[in-house]
């Protein structure tokens, strides 16, 4: 039984973590909120010391009505949706395949998991140059070999290319989690269905997929949170050009390139709201797990 003394000791031991995270969350958040309601252009001499002019919701409406806002939301949704779709579909197929008996399963697992550990700047640069370069990349060699005209991937198919790169990075994560879930599937149930003559697709649809539902939800939510803030992959490949400017990147450009802190902060608040909508769903699922 926990005594009263150990309870207060427990609270004392939680304090550093709680205080640190509280500070980490609140201080920048309050500053961002404050800036978002002000005119704050450091290059024109605005600074906190001299006091910032309060402009109400002007930044918020300007950010929403800017011509780059909706395209950036669309780009974000296409990118997150595309990566989710690819990693889930391929991840499920790959997980089922890897669950079968085979020779050298351990080695295959290692090969499949490897991309997850490559740092984002490296994978973006390797794909951009070694694979997707329109003259010297492997894809260009391959295209020419089959007599086709090489594609300027990051210009003509920029968004799809970035989706491809990011999917390559996240496929291991999806596969690994789905594989873990599949391995806990009761094989007797599958055998029974097989004996009863249920065809492969039916077995997949009515037994495997429902069993994976929870893992799939987790993959979707966790990936969404990471994908919403994809940065390095865009930074080193297109720099936001050719229709690859996501909401995150747009805010980055407002804050760093054009040094419009007020406007960028308003965008940041939008991004925080967006991320929190996703987060609420994730927390529900993880929270349920805590009770179990």
């Amino acid at each position: 039984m926990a005594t009263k003394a150990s309870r207060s000791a427990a609270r004392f031991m939680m304090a550093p973590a709680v205080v640190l995270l509280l500070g980490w969350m609140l201080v920048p958040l309050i500053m961002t909120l404050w800036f978002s309601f002000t005119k704050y252009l450091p290059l024109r001499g605005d600074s906190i010391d001299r006091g910032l002019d309060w402009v109400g919701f002007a930044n918020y409406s300007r950010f929403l009505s800017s011509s780059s806002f909706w395209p950036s939301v669309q780009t974000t949704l296409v990118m997150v949706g595309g990566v989710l779709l690819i990693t889930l579909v391929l991840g499920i197929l790959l997980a089922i395949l890897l669950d079968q008996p085979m020779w050298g399963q351990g080695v295959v697992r290692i090969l499949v998991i490897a991309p997850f550990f490559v740092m984002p700047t490296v994978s973006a640069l390797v794909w951009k140059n070694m694979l997707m370069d329109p003259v010297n990349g492997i894809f260009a060699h391959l295209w020419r070999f089959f007599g086709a005209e090489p594609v300027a991937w990051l210009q003509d198919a920029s968004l799809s290319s970035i989706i491809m790169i990011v999917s390559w990075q996240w496929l291991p994560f999806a596969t690994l989690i789905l594989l873990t879930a599949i391995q806990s599937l009761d094989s007797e149930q599958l055998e029974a269905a097989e004996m009863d003559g249920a065809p492969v697709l039916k077995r997949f649809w009515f037994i495997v997929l429902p069993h994976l539902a929870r893992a799939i939800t987790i993959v979707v939510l966790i990936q969404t949170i990471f994908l919403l803030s994809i940065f390095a992959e865009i930074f080193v490949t297109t720099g936001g050009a050719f229709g690859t400017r996501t909401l995150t990147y747009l805010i980055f450009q407002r804050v760093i390139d054009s040094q419009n802190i007020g406007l960028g902060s308003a965008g940041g608040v939008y991004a925080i709201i967006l991320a929190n909508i996703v987060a609420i769903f994730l927390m529900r699922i993880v929270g349920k797990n805590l009770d179990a």
Partner: protein
Amino acid sequence: MSRTVTKQRKMITTAAAWTIGLIIFFPIYWTILTSFKTEAQAINDPPLFFAFDWTLENYALVQERSDYMKFLWNSVIIAGGSTILGILVAIPAAWSMAFVPSKRTKDVLLWMLSTKMLPAVGVLYPISLIFVQFDLLDTRGGLVVVLMLINLPIIVWMLYTYFKEIPGEILEAARMDGATLKEEILYVLTPMAIPGIASTILLNFILAWNEAFWTLNLTAANAAPLTAFIASYSSPEGLFFAKLSAASTMAITPILILGWFSQKQLVRGLTFGAVK
């Protein structure tokens, strides 16, 4: 009883799985291979797979251009420092949540997780202002603190799920025998928790090593880790595939090796115990 699998079926599965595995691994393989070619061989059409003169000159050139050891050292300090600091803060917190749970424990855990969802770009400017104010810009210390805070929720969660599995009776027994709280943590809990703590350290070291938003935005010359080392190759420059490959290989090899050891913990750590 397990299903009997025909040898033929096993062969087909093996072939399919290996093919896909090799395709997925190909970009990494190709990078490592190219790092041993000359620049001319690197762009040879058709691509050279085996027949070329292996050379180490790219590694020397990369090293000449930017001091790899300095970036590597920064990466080690930043990733290692933030992980160790995070562990030190998280162990007591996770301990108390796992063994002295209160009504609010669940809420605190979920709230900690929610701080992880704060998009970095939303708070980039305030953080840079604070960094300027305290002279932390382009210092390893500043990044250690930021990455520690970013990964703290994951560290607490991972430790919490590991600690939860340690039977509380053992701790009670120690308490009965008159162990103080400090002794209980130091001599009873810690030895049992070491495997969990080790995997937590491993995974968070990897996450911190690969972090590429704060490390790119808050460093310049002094504290730049390997993510920035590589980013300096982002503008095209004549023939540079072999050099880029060498630099990439140098940046990913340490973590690739650690990563292979941590694949099991990865699932657990990144799903916050929701998939086991």
